[in-house]
């Protein structure tokens, strides 16, 4: 579970990607994993949140044709303070999506092209002895940016991957015993090519778990592809993109998402979903507790994007596939029968009763149905 580069012990049950909080080192996680915010950027009101999110999505959609769900999910992950894994065949716009998302926000962006000879220090940074000052000077690596795009992450060695993953987990970099905090918001968008796996280092399950969501872009439909050919011929659409929100605004949006209310019924629903994946005969490995926490965060972001300040079961359902599909492992028989994780998750959702808030269910209502059997 722990990456080799980690120096400080932390409970593996604690999730990654918590809102910024532990700025004073590893020892003080300060409940950040539980979503309790320290005084930070104030939450936005609903209208400005909607306006900001709509402008981001609108901007993305001008570049990426026919993939509004992918764009929305990417934004969801950003607002839920997770990291995104884009996994698909080459040429469907993985990197374009990542770049577009980064460009719409007025923030620092860095891109790492992962190769087998990439070193960890290329990612995290390196301390160089400065002759003039006779001191070690830290030269930050590519990870020091608000949005880090890691292209073809599976082509780098495990050690280099781990360096990135540690920073993803802890929002900090430790070089030569010194911890450097990363700026917020911080999001890693990694792409991965599921074919051409020769000579690559596929992400182990534990590390895939660090990504809040995985998106498969899929091919665009015919009309979108036509549109793409029309508009993208002359110039790269990226050049037209200008930032529509500032980093501070994004931080406020993140705070708004953290404010979204999750009722007991929804928590129960999430727990039931997790247990159902663990009990499913088609799955060898079900959803981890950490993944459920991430699921709920993503659901909160979805609710906020939908203009609500509370989570409904539909939010959980919407993000279930993206959040859980890359973490669960199919039973051999299920895998050989051609099912994939998304199918199995859909099947589980179809049979999972939707809860009702127990407090709202009338105990004496004549014939009132309790639906959480």
């Amino acid at each position, binding site marked *: 579970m722990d990456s080799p580069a980690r120096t400080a012990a932390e409970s593996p049950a604690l999730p990654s990607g918590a809102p910024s909080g532990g700025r004073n080192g590893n020892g003080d996680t300060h409940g950040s994993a539980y979503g309790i915010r320290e005084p930070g950027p104030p939450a936005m009101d609903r209208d400005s949140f909607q306006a900001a999110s709509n402008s981001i999505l609108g901007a993305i959609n001008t570049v990426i044709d026919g993939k509004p769900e992918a764009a929305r999910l990417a934004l969801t992950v950003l607002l839920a303070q997770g990291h995104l894994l884009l996994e698909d065949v080459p040429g469907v716009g993985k990197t374009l999506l990542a770049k577009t998302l980064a460009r719409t926000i007025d923030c620092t962006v860095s891109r790492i092209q992962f190769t087998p000879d990439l070193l960890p220090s290329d990612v995290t940074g390196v301390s160089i002895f400065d002759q003039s000052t006779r001191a070690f000077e830290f030269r930050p690596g590519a990870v020091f940016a608000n949005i880090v795009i890691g292209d073809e992450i599976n082509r780098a060695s495990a050690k280099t991957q781990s360096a990135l993953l540690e920073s993803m987990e802890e929002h900090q970099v430790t070089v030569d015993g010194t911890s450097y905090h990363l700026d917020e918001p911080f999001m890693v968008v990694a792409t991965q090519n599921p074919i051409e796996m020769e000579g690559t280092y596929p992400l182990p399950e534990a590390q895939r778990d660090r990504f809040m969501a995985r998106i498969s872009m899929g091919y665009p439909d015919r009309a979108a592809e036509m549109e793409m050919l029309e508009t993208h011929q002359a110039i790269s659409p990226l050049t037209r993109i200008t930032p529509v929100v500032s980093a501070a605004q994004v931080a406020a949006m993140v705070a708004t998402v953290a404010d979204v*209310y999750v*009722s007991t*019924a*929804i928590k129960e629903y999430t727990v039931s979903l997790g247990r159902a994946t663990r009990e499913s005969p088609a799955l060898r490995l079900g959803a981890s507790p950490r993944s459920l926490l991430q699921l709920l965060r993503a659901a909160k972001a979805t609710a906020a994007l939908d203009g*609500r*300040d*509370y*989570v*409904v*079961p*539909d939010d959980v*359902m919407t993000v279930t596939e993206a959040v859980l599909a890359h973490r669960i492992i199919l039973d051999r028989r299920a895998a050989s029968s051609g099912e994939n994780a998304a199918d199995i998750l859909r099947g589980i*959702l*179809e*049979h*999972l*009763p*939707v809860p*009702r*808030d127990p*407090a*709202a*269910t*009338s105990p004496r*209502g*004549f*014939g*009132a*149905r309790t*639906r959480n*059997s």
Partner: protein
Amino acid sequence: MSALLDRATTGRNTPGQGPQDTGTKKPGMGVQPWLMAFGIAVGVAGAALSLNGVLRGWAWYPPLLTVVAGVSFSVAALRSVRARPVLVTGGGFVVLIAITNLIFFRSSSLLGIFPSAQSMDAVGEALRRANETVISESVPVAPNAGIVLVCCVAVGVLVILIDALAVPLAMPATSGLGFLAIMVAPALLKPQSVGAPGFLTAAAGFLIILGCSHWFAPDARLAADSTRNPGQARRALVTGGAVLAASLIVPLAIPGFTQGTFPQGSRLNTWGTADGLNPMISLGNSLRAPTGSGRISYATNATNPPYLRSVTVDTFSGESWGPDDREGSRRPGTDRFDNDSSLAPDAQVRQVTAVSAGNFTSPYLPAPYSPDSVSGLTGQWTWDPLTLSIKGTDTSTRGQQYTVESSTPVLSAELLARASAPPTGISGIFSATPLDVPDIVRTTAQSVAGAEQNPYDKALAIQRYLRSGQFTYSLDSPAQGGYDGNGLSVLADFLTQKSGYCVHFSSAMAVMARLEGIPSRIAVGYAPGRLTGNTVAVDGEGELTEYEVDSRDAHAWPELYFEGIGWVPFEPTPSRGVVPDYTIDALSSLNPNSDDQAPDLAPGNPEATVPTATPTPSAEAGVGVDSSGTASGFRLAPALLAVAMLLVVLAVLGTPRLIRSSRRLRRERPTPSPTAVPLAWDELQDLGADYGLPSLPSETPRNYSQRLRDSGLLGEPAGVDNAAHIAVATLAADFERTAYGRPVENTSAVRGDLMVDDLVVRLGRVRASLAGNAGRIQHFRSQWLPQSVLRRH
């Protein structure tokens, strides 16, 4: 209304900003329950008017009226204090029990109204009496406590049923069924008519109920959406009008109704039974039947077709006369009967008659008098030595083919005139005169026959009197005059009205003969039949002429006892049967037609118009559907049973709907509560389920609302039913917020109150849209077989 829509659209109820009109109006209160109760009471009391004719006189009406008024107005009182529908209906039953206790069992009840052990005994006794009445008496029956109790309870239950149909079930038009249920019994039982006044009053009550349910519109459909009002009103009026029209037209279309319209009276012969306990009672109805049934054919070597006798009636006391079976003294076997003629065998003519009873079903075996032996029967048969009536113990006449050997004394006027000795060799039961013989019978007997000395002359005088022009044969006038049936009081009416049919003539002669000292009894059976034109080969007799009779030939005639001769039949009924030779001489001058020996009967008799050559197809058909023959009748039992079954069937059929609507009313209770929104959501899901779109357990509220809106059950989203679409969407949103949103600390009464009304309005829109877009069958299913009740998830 637009403000309401806006509010519904935003889904957020702002306290104090909602429209006040929906917030203040509480459906179903105020004067409405009382007017509704008035309508029900008027309708039921009017419909019950038609029971006159089933029950004699009017003594039964005040208690019935008390029950009707008491139950309906107490139900209204309960409703006006907004009791739950179930409580209202239950309260109605409690009041019904209390009132019936007060009326019928005051002395034995606790405090006059609560049932006690003694009063339960009294109930049992009353029910036993009612049962006796129902089984043994013919309409109109005397209103004894038992039968009135049964009527009161039945009518009380119907009041509750009508109320339940009209108010909580919101089907005012259907409540007409309740009135119909009351009028069915008289329509089936009563000889002439339900009666226009009763029918019109019931219709008036029905219209009050319809109007009341429309004016006050307890249904959210009407209150919510004014654009639907005309449609609703039209539908209610059309339904009500259709019910009335159907009640007038349907009888025309159904064979078996003798007259056209409902108030004109109608008699279905569907519940004829085969027990034939009292042929006297069924006789009038058999004669009035439009088509003959229970055809019996017989071939005989007698020169004239004989009377077929089934049974005798020899006790003339009590409200209603019936055969006394004297089970104890009956003898088994039909090989040999003791001939009760006092004449020497050589003074008698031996006759052989082969009878085929066909579909005629009765325990009593029709046979020519007096039988010596009967052969060819199956089953156990017994005979009464006193009357020679033959009765099956474990069998009936149905399908029997048997041969009767009988002896008929050769009688003449001279022979009879000589038999003047006082009767000695005869049981006293044939001479007993009841104590309560009405004066008119005594005086008539005295004036007619008192002057004669000889028993034969007395008998002739009585027969002559009854066959004289003063009397007319009529099947209908006794029924119209309320003296249909038999009994001493009927006899008095008959002698006053001087119009009736064989039962009246024969009983008049029998009773007057007894008053004059001649032992008598009434024989019930068949008048001589018509030639079929066929012959039947009978062993030892060769080819015999065949005759046939059916229920229209049912007849009753007196038999008088003459010492030294035996029982002698007479024929006092004008235009029916055959006047015996031994009475003709004295009569011929008076009644030239009476010696008519032909099978044809005198003109003017409705039965005489039936073709005589062969059985008519209609008669055959009648045999096919109704095999009960003369034993079938219109007694109370089958009709009451039918009404009871109708009620049970109605109750069973209505139960899912009742459960459904009480569930709905419970959810839409105007009490503000934090569960109002989840309950409204439950209701919406049930509504969807009723129209074939149940929600799935794994379905989220918004998915369900989307599926409901996409299903087409609500019509096009942007069309006329857009309000319903908005209502569904906002209900889902409201429910989501309540179920998953941040708990709201402040659910003030005002807000909750507004909220509930708003929810009810929205549910009403959805309901109206579902009903409007559903097909007829689908709508019917949703109303009567609601899947939300019948199927659980």
